């Protein structure tokens, strides 16, 4: 029987913890929240108990809640997005006193709260989204400059989350307007090439699988959905237009989450899907290998009912250490979990 064991509980943030993530080597855990700080956590080498401890606090970059934080693929840069309408870039400087992060750039342009920031897999782009309904794409210059490459106003309401495709420069965004939109670069122009409609309320988050051919979304409507990419001229009879792929909702899981689902993470090593929910629980699913790939079913492996004392806001699978999951909550804590199948 599968289990999700609590490895440790990490206090420190003074307020809601909004977002957790890992660096690409899986050695550093990163979090941010209402207390306007970004915290970096690493495994305590001296401890045998797999304990994680906070080793850096990045403060003074933002005036308000930090909503989202993300490591660059090179692991040297961190981007943070805040309700103060800006995005900060923090750079690791190695000095005699150890590793220090300094805020080296502030990206301004959004009219109000920035809700999410994400680096593309190639490291050449950064995407941000905001309550001002727009998605911005920033080009990362070689000298560390950030230049706005596109302002995408495809959504009709706040954009809650942006996520890059694991291999290509394709961006997916989730919004309060209940849709997900997909963007790609076409002749130096960023265009929206797909709108995924099926959720009945705000889409809070989304995650690609390791292949980038499947997308999982979660929503305020208490469902999660799996979407599959169908290329032009596919053999399954799924219509496409303008020579662009079609994304089709192939699975809807309802009646499992009793409240809003705030985050979803799709493990690229194991294929496990974790959800963070407003009912304080963390749940682990996988696509039933027996099921039809064009109409897959989700198998619920684990539920941790009171994973946190309040809403769970974010979950993230460690990209390297198999089955290691991080979560964070309104209860001001982070937790690290180990999945055992």
């Amino acid at each position, binding site marked *: 029987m599968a289990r999700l064991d609590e490895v440790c509980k990490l206090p420190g943030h003074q307020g*809601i913890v909004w977002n957790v993530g890992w660096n690409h080597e899986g050695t550093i855990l990163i979090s941010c929240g209402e207390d306007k700080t970004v915290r970096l956590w690493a495994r305590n080498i001296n401890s045998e108990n797999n304990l994680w401890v906070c080793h850096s606090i990045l403060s003074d970059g933002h005036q308000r*809640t930090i909503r989202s934080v993300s490591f660059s693929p090179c692991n040297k840069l961190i981007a943070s997005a805040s309700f103060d309408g800006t995005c900060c870039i923090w750079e690791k400087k190695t000095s005699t006193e150890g590793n220090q992060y300094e805020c080296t750039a502030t990206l301004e342009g959004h009219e109000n709260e920035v809700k999410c920031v994400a680096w593309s897999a190639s490291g050449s782009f950064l995407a941000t989204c905001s309550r001002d309904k727009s998605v911005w794409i920033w080009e990362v210059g070689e000298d560390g400059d950030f230049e706005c490459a596109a302002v995408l106003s495809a959504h009709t309401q706040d954009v809650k989350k942006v996520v890059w495709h694991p291999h290509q420069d394709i961006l997916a965004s989730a919004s*309060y307007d209940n849709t997900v939109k997909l963007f790609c670069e076409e002749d130096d122009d960023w265009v929206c090439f797909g709108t995924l409609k099926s959720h009945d309320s705000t889409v809070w988050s989304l995650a690609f699988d390791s292949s980038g051919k499947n997308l999982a979304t979660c929503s305020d409507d208490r469902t999660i959905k799996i979407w599959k990419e169908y290329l032009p001229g596919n053999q399954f009879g799924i219509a496409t237009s303008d020579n662009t792929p079609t994304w089709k909702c192939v699975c809807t899981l309802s009646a499992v989450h009793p*409240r809003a689902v705030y985050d979803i993470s799709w493990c690229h090593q194991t294929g496990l899907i974790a959800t963070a929910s407003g*009912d304080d629980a963390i749940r682990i699913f996988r696509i039933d290998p027996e099921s039809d790939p064009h109409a897959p079913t989700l198998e619920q492996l684990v539920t941790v009912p009171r994973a946190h*004392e*309040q809403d769970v806001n974010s979950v993230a699978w460690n990209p390297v250490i198999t089955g290691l999951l991080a979560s964070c909550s309104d209860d001001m804590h982070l937790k690290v979990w180990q999945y055992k199948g």
Partner: protein
Amino acid sequence: MTTKGIENVNPQRFVKKTKREVTTQEEDESVKDPIDEREIFDLLRDISDPEHPMSLEELNVVQITNIEVDDHQNSVKVFYTPTIPHCSMATLIGLSIKVCLLRSLPPRFKVEVNISPGSHASEEAVNKQLADKERVSAALENSNLLEVVNQCIVKSLE
């Protein structure tokens, strides 16, 4: 305060409920008092309307019959009734109610604040906004909004 621009110039004033009487059970240390509808109502009744010098109770915006509490399941639902169906302050009133409850209820509770069905033109939009925890959090970092909300709540504490 100016009178011009006040939309609902002639609201009905309703009679106030009397103070909750303290029962012997409530004074008995050994008895656990469940959190009930009346307790939620008492937290909210004296919040004032952002536009009128009257309380939500006097305006019948909150009523005890429109509150649902389940102490075991940790759920509180408040349905409030704006004074008129086009009241532009509906979101602000809802926000004040929600903020008051978030600050004064144990965090184990899931608090839902909704407009009473059929009592407002933009019912769905307002409900969706109030349910969005991210927007509520952000609103509380906006000093203009926070000021209005606090002013509505502060009178209920006196």
